[in-house]
């Protein structure tokens, strides 16, 4: 075979190289200079992110196991960007870990391998690659969730994550095996041809769907989310809620729109109800959360519910809106988690109550958080509004007006609890508000990028048009 084809895997290979480099660096960097590995990792990944934007031609490798096209490529870039921001935001935290507990460089290695898994997952051409990618993306995160060995809840969340994910992957495997049984192949494009709506393949589809829903944390497969987010380090929670969820949405979309296309009318019904359940459960639980991380966890569940409105459209419009929304969602959620990260680093406070009077001490942070929450709530002119509006448009384009109606009801509910946080920051004076502090440079860059994203992504329409063009590939 022609080795130039390997250029299709450029990003995967580059990331692998980075991981190896970091391993070597881990060995050679002396103990007292360990924190310099942060700069190294940031630098390397930054380069990687930038290089990622050079485009790659569409093709597939290994007899279709691995494939890539512009949309997938674009999505990988989105993820890169997200991870990069995430690294910027967690740099200080890791530094502190390195200095105090003399551990932390493995953080990057694990994180990157998980990202590598995601790469493989979303550009998988058959279920084997998909499965490997899935596991590779999950297991390191479980390790990272249990990263703070000193904290009990950290280990708890680790266990909850690994057990649940093991169950989920087992179930989805079982489903895959059934799909295999009906069609005799694990390759997507072959499956597409032979798949018919017999009981076995339906069961297979449902189990597979359940397995992926677990990563997107759709009701009723969402229960692990809140606990894991709460226990895990903030960076990991934000990684789970942003990167891995986004990737899972993407792959689910690919599967539904390509492989499971023959069963469309069934999974549309399925998504219809799951969307309703997810939005309501997510919102109702988010209402009464006191802990910022749990709060964001449930809000992210609700957001997943909204995303399904785009999936249900099952059209180019659907694809475009979903990708667009995920992009915006990544920025909004990263901004929110970033602020939470910064504050908990400074004061170790994570409860909403602790945020009272924040505006009067740290106006900029509170503004960032407010923008992020408004974007999540979908209030113009920040990006989230456009994302949501287009999702609803997608659903309405298929005539799901009632679903849209329920969705807007949920938007109102969600606005309530987002405003609760705003209330804490702006309206309340607070008896002992968090004192003023300046963020380190990395954190500031990380927040600024997200804010720029939140402000511009919506208004800047060519972006959406670009995504729309890319999304033609699946329909």
């Amino acid at each position, binding site marked *: 075979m022609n080795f130039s084809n390997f250029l299709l895997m450029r990003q995967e290979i580059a990331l692998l190289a980075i991981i190896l480099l970091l391993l070597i660096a881990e060995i050679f960097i002396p103990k007292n200079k360990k924190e310099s590995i942060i700069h190294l990792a940031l630098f390397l990944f930054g380069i990687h992110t930038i290089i990622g934007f050079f485009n790659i031609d569409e093709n597939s490798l290994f007899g279709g196991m691995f494939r890539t096209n512009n949309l997938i490529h674009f999505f990988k870039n989105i993820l890169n960007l997200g991870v990069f921001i995430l690294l910027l935001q967690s740099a200080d935290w890791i530094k502190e870990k390195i200095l105090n507990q003399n551990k932390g460089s493995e953080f990057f290695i694990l994180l990157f391998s998980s990202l590598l898994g995601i790469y493989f997952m979303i550009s998988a051409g058959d279920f084997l690659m998909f499965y490997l990618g899935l596991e590779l993306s999950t297991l390191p995160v479980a390790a990272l969730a249990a990263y703070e060995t000193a904290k009990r809840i950290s280990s708890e969340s680790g266990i909850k994550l690994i057990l649940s994910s093991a169950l989920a992957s087992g179930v989805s495997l079982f489903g895959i095996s059934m799909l295999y049984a009906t069609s005799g192949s694990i390759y997507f494009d072959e499956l597409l041809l032979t798949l018919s709506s017999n009981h076995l393949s339906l069961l297979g589809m449902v189990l597979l769907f359940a397995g992926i829903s677990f990563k997107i944390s759709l009701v009723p497969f969402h229960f692990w989310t809140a606990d894991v987010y709460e226990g895990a380090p903030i960076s990991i929670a934000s990684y789970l809620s942003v990167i891995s969820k986004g990737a899972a949405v993407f792959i689910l979309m690919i599967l539904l729109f390509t492989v499971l296309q023959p069963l469309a009318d069934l999974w549309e019904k399925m998504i219809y109800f799951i969307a309703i359940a997810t939005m309501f459960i997510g919102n109702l639980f988010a209402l009464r959360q006191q802990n910022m991380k749990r709060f964001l966890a449930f809000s992210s569940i609700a957001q997943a519910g909204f995303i399904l409105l785009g999936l249900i459209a099952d059209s180019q419009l659907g694809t475009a809106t979903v990708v667009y929304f995920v992009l915006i969602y990544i920025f909004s959620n990263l901004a929110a988690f970033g602020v939470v990260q910064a504050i908990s680093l400074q004061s170790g406070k994570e409860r909403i109550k602790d945020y009272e009077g924040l505006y009067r001490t740290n106006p900029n942070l509170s503004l960032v958080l407010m923008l992020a929450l408004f974007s999540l709530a979908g209030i113009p002119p920040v990006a989230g509004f456009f994302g949501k509006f287009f999702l609803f*448009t997608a659903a309405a384009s298929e005539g799901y007006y009632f679903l849209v109606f329920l969705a*807007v009801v949920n938007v*109102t509910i969600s*606005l309530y609890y987002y405003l609760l946080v705003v209330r804490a920051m*702006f309206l309340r004076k607070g008896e002992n508000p968090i004192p003023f502090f300046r963020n380190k440079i990395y954190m500031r860059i990380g927040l600024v990028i997200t804010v720029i994203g939140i402000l511009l992504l919506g208004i800047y329409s060519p972006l959406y*048009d670009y995504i729309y063009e890319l999304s033609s590939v699946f329909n």
Partner: protein
Amino acid sequence: MDILSLFIVVPALTVLVLIFTKNLKQARIVALAGSLVQLGMAINLVFSYVREKEVNNAIMVFTKDVIWFKNFNIHYNIGVDGISVALLLLTAIVVLAGVFISWKMEDLPKEFFISLIVLSIGVYGFFISIDLFTMFVFFEIAVIPMYLLIGIWGTGPKEFSAMKLTLMLMGASAILLVGILGIYFNSNSDGGALTFNILEIAKVNIPFEVQRLFFPITFIGFAVIGALFPFHTWSPDGHASAPTAVSMLHAGVLMKLGGYGVFRVAIFLLPEGALHWSWFFIILSAFGVIYGAFAAIKQTDLKYINAYSSVSHLGLVLFALLMLNKTAWNGAILQSLSHGFMTALFFALIGMIYGRTHTRDVTKLGGLLKVIPFISAVYVIAGLASLGLPGFSGFVAEMNIFVGAFEQEDIFYRIATVIAISAIVVTAVYILRVVGIMLMGPVKNDAFLNLERVRWYEKLGILLLLLPIIAIGVAPLWLSELILQSLDPFLKGVL
């Protein structure tokens, strides 16, 4: 830069400058300068509109159309007709007055003025939008600052009121979104591309079933902010808790978005739906008119009284809009304007009285005419204007509404109209009650005897609002002509 986009840009620039201001002095100067410029632009717009209208007979003039999201056929599409011109002028005046009234905003002045101006951006944008999507965007931009404005600078149970207000209005706008999508996806019923452009949609005839389904949704979506019974309950609490300038802006301008939206979207785009549903909403609004007036009688908090009177007056606006003829519509728009000025004036005065006496409970006040004659005298005038005395704007508006409403032969409409008219007596009752208890009579509390006289900036704010009321009331012709000539396009749908 075209004449209309300035209405977005200038406030935006004002906000940008405000961000860098240090203290109250700078902030208020900047805000004042900004809103003065806006007022200038609004006045200029009126004249240039009249000039433009002579040569250009389009429905909307000064149109500007920039494509935004081409896949959804979303445009940044702006233009004005007589109605929006008038409402823009109203907005500019009320905003300026609001700045004057909050001249002494001690707590977080910068943020206050920023939110105020952002709100006005939303309102301006809403009035000049021709594109449903843009309109909706500006609608929500206008609503959301209310939360901070009431929540931070308000009084009393401010957090509760702010939350209630925001949720009810945003909930309404969320429902409205469904309506808008419904209209959008039926905007090509006779071929062509889907569009959000109001003028385009008005051309196509949307199937009756669709109109019947989406008219109530759209109507309610807008009417909630127009304080339609029974969705008005956000307004009394909201007004009561809001700081003066915000009450002014909210009651004076923001609540007009409801009537305007109902007219421009629900009735203009879904006329058959309007014909089909008008009876139902006429019952609601007519009831709201009389009900709000009666509810106002028993209130003791000045702001509650005014809030309920707003419910009554704005009920009249919706009532008139649903009468589906030019005279009534003209009346509705005039009523929107006159109520805008009057209620803003009321809230300004209430704010001044509260700032001096530290109470809004009429039973605790008395004999203010003796101690603060100017404010009290203007309050009497505002009261007389509000009960529809000739020579003030309210009379002109109401007469148009009633005459228009009488053009409906049907006995049902007659009864509804008589009910609505009878509200003028009840209005007189609660207005004169307040005037009698609060301004006249002996001075109840010796502490009032040495109240601070009116300050220059307060005077300016008051006059700014009082003059239009009298101007419209004495010489209504120019304004009603301005509006009347813009009503024909709306008419063809409902005939």
